């Protein structure tokens, strides 16, 4: 069945920073998981700092980035979410590029979970009191153990959210006939006929403050704020 509403015009829906952020995060989450399991804690910590930097950058880009990257662009109120969800039940999704109302809040939930995980990891200590996060010496052993346990619980939540994320991508591909992976790789997506589109592009120099902020915070944290 061909998608009736889509015309030939393709627009750039995801800018380079968003796409890089997404795929670097996928790799780093996998590497954090592996290094944690293998007790390669130096690698695990470095991976965590890299994830922290990515998250800080994404937070900045959510205010300074292109149209589809901005939180204001995709975080919608409960009514919009309910309307969209009802449409999904009828297998309707207009296919407007960018995060849909449900997807938008899922993204925020994923980001919040990751932030919380990194936050806990910074204070965590292992059961032997040997390996710890860079800020763990500011808290007691008991507090560090609690942080480690919450870090582990949040990982289970993260896995569930990632599973949901993948299920949604599959649903869009198989049921709604929207390829969401391609646009996140090369950035371009077809525009439904009749849909208005504003590119919302921003100058590339805008990444610089974000990179400085992300790098600076990750470095300071890695040093435990000891200079």
């Amino acid at each position, binding site marked *: 069945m061909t998608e009736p509403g889509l015309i030939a015009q393709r627009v750039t829906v995801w800018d380079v920073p968003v796409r890089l952020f997404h795929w670097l995060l996928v790799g780093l989450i996998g590497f954090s998981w592996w290094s944690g399991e293998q*007790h390669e804690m130096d690698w695990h910590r470095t991976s965590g700092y890299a994830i922290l930097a990515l998250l800080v950058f994404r937070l900045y880009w959510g205010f300074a980035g292109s149209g589809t990257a901005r939180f204001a662009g995709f975080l919608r109120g409960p009514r919009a979410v309910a309307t969209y969800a009802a449409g999904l039940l009828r297998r309707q999704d207009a296919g407007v590029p960018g995060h849909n109302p449900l997807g938008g809040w899922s993204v925020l939930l994923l980001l919040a979970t990751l932030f919380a995980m990194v936050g806990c990891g910074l204070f965590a200590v292992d059961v*032997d*009191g*040997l390996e*710890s996060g860079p800020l*763990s*010496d500011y808290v*007691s*052993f008991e507090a560090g153990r609690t942080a480690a346990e919450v870090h582990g619980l949040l990982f289970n939540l993260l896995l569930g959210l990632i599973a949901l994320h993948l299920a949604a991508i599959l649903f869009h591909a198989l049921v709604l006939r929207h390829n969401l992976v391609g646009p996140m790789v090369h950035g371009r997506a077809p525009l439904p006929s009749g849909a208005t589109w504003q590119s919302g592009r921003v100058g590339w120099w805008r990444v610089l403050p974000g990179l400085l902020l992300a790098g600076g915070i990750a470095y300071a944290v890695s040093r435990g704020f000891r200079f």
Partner: protein
Amino acid sequence: MTRRTTIAAAVTALTGAALLLAGQIHAAPARAPADAIKARQAGYKKMGAAMKQLMDQLKSDAPAKDAMLGAARTLAATSREQVSLFPVGSGPGGAVKTDALANIWTERPAFDAQMTKLVAETGKLATVAAGGDVDAIRAQAKATGAVCGACHRQFRADD
């Protein structure tokens, strides 16, 4: 009393006394499993906190020698106490939950060897800490940690 009776009475009394004394030395009563579990869990938490204290000092720019020595001594003393806290019957499946795996009792010689190593390494840590050489303390802390990890991988339930 006749001389023979006196000697017999004395021997009996001395034997009785000897047996009593022997009984005192031998009869350290085996801990009830639940008590042993709780005691060793408290001991290990104490050791974890002490190791963290030591590692926190080593992380800083100016490690405090007294704090490190205190932590090392806690590790050495507590590890010696842990040796007797794994009586038969204090494994998994009892009334009190424990992370101790059943193979502690089925592979007891290997477990006891790890315990002996722990006592040795923590003892060495206390000696090295008294010496005050930060690099040596760091190295011995790492060596001690390796023993903790090795025993846990074999005999402790995964978190």
